[in-house]
């Protein structure tokens, strides 16, 4: 694989990281919740898609109309039944609750699905690739993932900018107490944001499962990558998260070209470097106040 090919493939892979990260970023920006079970919820999406696609005997893409709404509903339920109570206990409580949830999910998946690696049936797209010129061959799967990520992020951005719901979300992210005071009903907004977070996580999980294999413990590393993408890109902007994801993807693929064993380490080191040098993120833009909430 040539360098150009590697960089482009890294970018495309970054789209998936951005997709998994945007839910985390949204949830933190609006609700001040870091959901440590986020990665595991993505893996649940993959498992659900696996079950449905195997049961119906179709490629995993046909399961999306079922899996995504289910994930959205699960996110709302999670918020209303669990996170709302945890939020009253403060930051501490949400971190502890979501970590405990993560342990439960990973082990329930182990019980239900065994610890074996799984792959998703990706149908024809899974093996197709597109050629650009003589040097560049890109698997269709990666291209589709990247385009989907851009579409989802773009769609979310539109919703946030143009709709009444989006205004409420941004108002709450700015100042939840005043939002309540001027009559915004915060509960339903939190529930829908949580729904989006889990739905995007599930979608990302399906792509992750399509591109590589997955097992019950994949959630933890997924969470870590999502988190790193958010921090590298900077809080407060969905496009920043995309940039962060791309930075992650490119680093991983390019270093992987040199020596596969160092690829993941390189990503972690990039994260630590950004943390050391520019903790607000590379593309923080106009939201330094948001970063201050995270930095002690």
């Amino acid at each position, binding site marked *: 694989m040539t360098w150009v090919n590697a960089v482009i493939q890294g970018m495309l892979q970054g789209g998936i990281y951005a997709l998994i990260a945007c839910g985390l970023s949204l949830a933190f920006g609006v609700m001040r919740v870091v959901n440590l079970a986020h990665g595991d919820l993505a893996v649940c999406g993959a498992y659900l898609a696996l079950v449905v696609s195997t049961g119906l005997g179709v490629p995993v893409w046909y399961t999306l109309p079922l899996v995504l709404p289910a994930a959205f509903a699960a996110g709302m339920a999670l918020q209303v039944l669990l996170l709302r109570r945890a939020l009253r206990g403060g930051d501490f409580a949400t971190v502890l609750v979501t970590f405990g949830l993560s*342990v439960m999910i990973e082990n*329930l998946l*182990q019980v239900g699905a065994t610890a074996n690696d799984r792959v998703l049936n990706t149908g024809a797209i899974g093996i197709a690739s597109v050629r650009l010129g003589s040097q560049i061959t890109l698997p269709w799967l990666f291209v589709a993932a990247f385009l989907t990520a851009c579409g989802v992020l773009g769609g979310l951005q539109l919703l946030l900018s143009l709709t009444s719901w989006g205004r409420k979300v941004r108002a709450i992210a700015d100042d939840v107490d005043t939002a309540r005071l001027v009559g915004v009903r915060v509960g339903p907004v939190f529930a829908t944001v949580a729904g989006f977070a889990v739905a995007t996580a599930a979608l990302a999980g399906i792509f992750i499962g399509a591109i590589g294999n997955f097992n019950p413990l994949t959630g933890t590393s997924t969470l870590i990558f999502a988190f790193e993408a958010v921090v590298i890109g900077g809080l407060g902007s969905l496009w920043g998260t995309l940039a962060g994801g791309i930075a992650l993807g490119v680093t991983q693929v390019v270093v992987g070209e040199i020596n596969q064993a160092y690829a993941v380490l390189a990503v972690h080191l990039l994260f630590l470097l950004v943390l050391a040098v520019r903790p607000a993120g590379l593309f923080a833009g106009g939201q330094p106040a948001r970063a201050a909430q995270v930095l002690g």
Partner: protein
Amino acid sequence: MRPEELVTALDANPRPVRVGRWNLAASVTAGSAAAGLVTLAAVPYFAGGPAEQPLIVAFTFIAMASLWNLLAGFSGLTSFGQHAYIGVGAYGLYLVAEHGVNPFAGIVPAAVIACVVALPVSALLLRLTGGYFAVASLVVAAVFQIAVTLAPSVGGTTGVSLPGLAGYGSVLREAMIYWAAMIVAVACVAGVFLMVRAGFGLDARAVGSDPVAAASLGVRVGRIRLLAYLAGALGMGAVGALIALQTLFIEPTSVFSIQYSVDMLFMVLIGGMGTIEGPIIGALILFALQQQLSQYGAWYLVLVGGIAVLATLTVPRGLWGVVSDRWGWSLFPVGYQVRDRPHDQ
């Protein structure tokens, strides 16, 4: 009471208030703990192997729980990556033993190595708070694990076996591990107790509950968190060395296992955050649960996670918290109690 009324009340009764730091329950505890420790120390003489094994596990739990509590319960640092220093301690012991140091004596340098490693890490990590600190601590643990697998001098992915124990017969070795574990556990509990009782404790709890307010009062927030983090790493390093002594074979996925952090979280949550007694109780509960239920594998862990979630939502101060709130017991008193009260209104 309106301000001028309180002033009048105090003016009328100018008796100084006596403040004490110890109480009867604490004396009883100290006495029975001392007696208990003597008995425990004698276990290898009258009970031998089968009794030692579970007790070693219990001691390790008590040490881990107390240390995690120092970080999360007293200083507001929810780290799920403390197991990183267990791994560092284990490998540290290996390195030290490789250079000829007696493995039992090596526990101390191994702990120090963990502490030294924690120093640069803290410069990065302690910039974060809350959930972001938690996830970043996971990253650090992942980095350590990967770094070790890439280093052939410590055995890469296969691991290494601990040298220097050939001279010990198995009975003696077991007994020495047992005593080492006991000493580490006592040191951790006593260390945390003394730290919290001293000025550090009040400052730490202020930092834990409201860093901005604490800073405005002059508490050096950064320094408190750094002290807690380093002390935690030191202790975890010792625990890691203990684990290496027990298993004799040091391998990345097991010494860097996140399961340790899951256990720590559970013990402190159930037992009671922010108290000295709580983690000990939590450790004993986890010990009991594990002895009975770990055969059920993943279901056991689902239970552990589930109890942790429930505990956070229903008894955030843990079982000991419920007890001490209700009856005011304090076996390891770290606060100040008023002995005489001004004349009641």
